[in-house]
């Protein structure tokens, strides 16, 4: 399990802290625990997603500037998961999801479900949130969601020996406090 509030730049990824954060925690986890990429899945969760890239693209559009296709790709977490899958030879399922509440539990439940598959041995779970911007602040206010106080990511490598999750749910911070097997 690893956490980070910042990460070094990742080659080819620009503008946002989202992808470097994901890469930092996932990279550390996977380096510390090497395994068979063919029997590994990746699950990424974020309630809001990469608002920095998404909203930069939107404001450029409104400003009449030429759209950068890189911003579409990088605003979707497929790009960084694809980058990681290539780096570590991971050919199992890649999943990215969003939940309004209890994202930590949603990620762990998804990992648990994926491990029903006898063709998989482990799932790297990554949770990430950015502090956001005016748009996400307005959305959080409307939805009664607490805004993240800082950019933050957590990664947890789950296998069949990992203890079942505690009832009562986890937010991403609680996920980071989870005891490792």
């Amino acid at each position, binding site marked *: 399990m690893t956490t980070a509030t910042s990460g070094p730049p990742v080659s080819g990824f620009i503008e946002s802290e989202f992808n470097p954060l994901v890469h930092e925690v996932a990279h550390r986890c996977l380096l510390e625990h090497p395994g068979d990429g063919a029997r590994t899945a990746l699950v990424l969760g974020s309630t809001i997603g990469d608002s920095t890239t998404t909203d930069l693209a939107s404001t450029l559009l409104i400003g009449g500037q030429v759209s950068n296709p890189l911003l579409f790709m990088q605003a979707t977490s497929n790009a960084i998961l694809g980058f990681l899958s290539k780096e570590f030879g991971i050919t199992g399922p890649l999943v990215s999801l969003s939940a*309004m509440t209890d994202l930590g539990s949603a990620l762990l439940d998804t990992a648990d479900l994926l491990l029903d598959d006898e063709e998989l041995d482990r799932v790297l779970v990554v949770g990430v949130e950015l502090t956001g911007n005016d*748009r996400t602040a307005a959305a959080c206010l409307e939805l009664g969601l607490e805004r993240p106080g800082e950019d933050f990511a957590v990664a947890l490598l789950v296998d069949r020996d990992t203890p079942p999750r505690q009832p009562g749910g986890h937010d991403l911070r609680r996920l980071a406090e989870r005891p490792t097997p």
Partner: protein
Amino acid sequence: MAEVVVTGFGVRTAFGRGADAIRRGVFGGVPSFAPTTRFDTGPYRTPNAATTGSDKPDSQRDVLGDCADEAVEMAGFTARDDTAVLVGTSGDFATLTRFWRGEAGVDVADTVPAHLVDLLAARIGAAGQRLAFTNACVASASAIIHACGLIASGRLESAVCGGAYLVEEEVFAKFDSGRALSRDGVVRPFSVDRSGMLLGDGAAVVVLESASAARRRGARPLATVAGWGAASDAFHVSRPHPQGAGLAAAAQRALRRAGDPDGLLVDYVNAHGTATKFNDPAETQGLHEVFGTRADQVPVSSTKSTTGHLLEAAGIVEFVITLLALTDGVLPPTANFTEADPSCDLDYVPNTARDADVRRALNVNAAFGGFNTALVLERP
């Protein structure tokens, strides 16, 4: 493992609402592309997309809600406390644009993908797990795969899955800038003169249940989901693996689960078929890997040739189209087909629908980053 069945669906494309609109358009091989008036297309290389023609389209929340109403009515289904709601969406981009333009009365929360799922769950009274799948062109297929796992394992008995994308300027501009859009307003999957994809409006909702739960309440299954699988290419952040390795692996996982590892029982494949330079040969290679020497005997079509690329909704709308192929006994064609690309050598059901006794069909999707999904549907 519990058997997973489909008991209802609601669907919308540029052809309109419901199955009959799909029969007329998709199975009729009639492309739905035209210059869109939804925004000023002057700055872009092409004005074309498959839209419903309305300058002010419905919001994703409304379209998903309408599809859900149709799906639960068709299924005669009442959501239970444990019914999961799983939706492929990246949020409402039209709302995002309106927010940054400073327009009044914007439902800014609709830009949060999971909020759209919560709205849908509230509309149908479902109180189980609620997740948005945000992995682009495989998002709604991933939602279906997740639901199948939950139901098959006995964790729950029912799930309502959805997916939505409505053409808007944010994504249109990026695909245009990336030169991914067809230059001449026509989408020609697998043809030598293809020049790219076009975007389309799409949304669908399906009701999935365990066969025993459906039987208990007297519901008639429309189809069984016999297998599902996902796999990644581990190749490139934007390009597919040239041999379609991940797509083949996903299909093989799904077929193993369906008890047919070599795909001998598959009568039809609904392909991802984007009509882009890299996708179509890679997908063809992947299908060769799946079916081996039988590959040229399995009909394969890309219905994006009529609907356009529906992004997060692609998986679930094509799932519904595949279901209709099973129930109607008709294979939808690859429209606009001219001459096959030399590297695309399968039976693509060119231009005209074909009657066929389809018992089992495979539906595959792919997304940038090397994401691949596969679903096996079977006629009851």
